[in-house]
């Protein structure tokens, strides 16, 4: 079943120099294993391909039911150097939430995941 991240997670992003971070938080604690399993480092790197110039790094925070992604080279130099509207990476959070993941039907039903429209 196709599931949109925007329906099962919330997020906040910020900056450190030319790196944006996105914290991705499962809306329900029981949905954390789903984002942990399907929102992989490489999946996120593909999602932002062409939009960032550096690597993606992923950290897990199971205690907060959250993942933290560092998107290097995301901010055109960052801070005051950047010419971007989103020079401080404030809405990379919602850009990540545009991702759709494929979850096996059984898991999706068991966890009552909302299906993508």
């Amino acid at each position: 079943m196709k599931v949109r991240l925007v329906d099962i997670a919330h997020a906040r992003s910020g900056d450190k120099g030319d790196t944006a971070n996105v914290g991705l938080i499962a809306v329900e604690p029981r949905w954390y294993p789903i984002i942990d399993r399907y929102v992989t480092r490489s999946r996120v790197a593909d999602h932002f391909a062409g939009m960032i110039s550096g690597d993606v790094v992923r950290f897990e925070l199971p205690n907060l039911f959250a993942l933290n992604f560092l998107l290097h080279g995301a901010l055109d130099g960052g801070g005051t150097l950047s010419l971007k509207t989103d020079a401080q990476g404030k809405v990379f959070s919602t850009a990540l939430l545009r991702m759709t993941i494929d979850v096996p039907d059984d898991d999706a039903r068991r966890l009552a995941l909302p299906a993508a429209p």
Partner: protein
Amino acid sequence: MSRIVRVGAGQGFWGDWLEAPRRQVEGGPIDYLMLDYLAEVTMSILQKQKERDPAMGYARDFVGAMESVLGPVSAGKVRVIANAGGVNPPACAQAIKALAGRSGSRAGLRIGVVTGDDLLPRIDALVDAGHALANMDTGDPLETVRDRVLSANAYIGSEPIVDALRQGAQVVITGRSTDTALTMAPLRFEFGWAADDWNRLAAGIIAGHIIECGAQCSGGNCLYDWQSIPDLANVGYPIVEAAEDGSFAITKHAGTGGRVSVRTVTEQLVYEMGDPHSYITPDVIADFTSIRLAEDGPDRVRVFGITGAPPTDKLKVSIAYRAGFKAVGTLVYSWPDAVEKAELADRILRERLDRLDLRFDKIHTEFVGVSATHGRLAGQMADVPEVQFRIGVRGEDRAAVERFTREIAPLVLNGPPSVTGFAGGRPKVEEIVAYWPALIDKRVVTTAVEIVA
């Protein structure tokens, strides 16, 4: 029941809500008012102001904030801790002293001034002594930008703030203290936490991280269920209620708007996060993977279980340097074919810049309303009613950037049709002051505390 110490946040950055400090002090009990004014590039702006006037170089908003809470502070009901000193904490202290004098409040407002973070006067000596101050991101030595450095400040920890409180300061003014130390220091002072009590110090740091952006943990900028967050016009700023064992609750005053929940707090916890296992501060390394959160009644979250580890032998240094010039111009194109018109304007403008032989380090185009923030992820959009064409340049040559600013307006009459939104006039050329993060040995940075009464 063990003793509780309350620290309320009243500013999350320079420019935050002017009403917040007074509302925190008058809205219910707090023991400390914590005001965070400094972002990465704020120090360089303040340094420029100090160069023009040696009595400036601090966050002027702080004077107004102090005026709004002077009564309760003078009366000893609440103490204030602020990094409003910027690059000139002594001048900031004098301004507060003058304010207290003018207002005729009872004599004896004790102001603690923390100094020692400013490395600018010592920068050549430090480099000569072998401190490379290499850029933490690029590895380049400071030599490459040495002649363009505007300010250099070490991020200092809780120690001098604790010292000032011990000496009876009712107001503590620092320069480049870490944001989190402003909250951790009063807890360490009140509970007598030892300098190597890593778990408790880490708890204080994480309490500081949660409230350092003001209302961003109490309903402001919260994505989860944002439509249901009540009364943001009357938003309550966050308060830490801490216990001696390092556990604490995040809450806000009764009768205020916004929301404190596990979700609003979690969003703030992940904000600007790097490696969650090691959140490095001068005092302690905090482990964000140890944090436990629990709902503890309406607008109240309990935070516990936090662990920490000894810090490194380095301090982070915030260096600001001149890095060329930039300008950004915009025009708005309307339906029909708004995006195609804006794209043509972009091609025309770039061709003209090329023919003028203007060279820039970067030219950046965005179509606001279509793809500016989410790029291709936003997908194709049907015939939009309007789009903002936004183009920026940056480079070392000020004259080239100036010339660019003259090339936007002509498009209104000599470019694609249905264009508007140029009433703001020619774009402004801005000097870029960029951020250079570096590390330095802790032992070369010595802080000092002075009490001004």
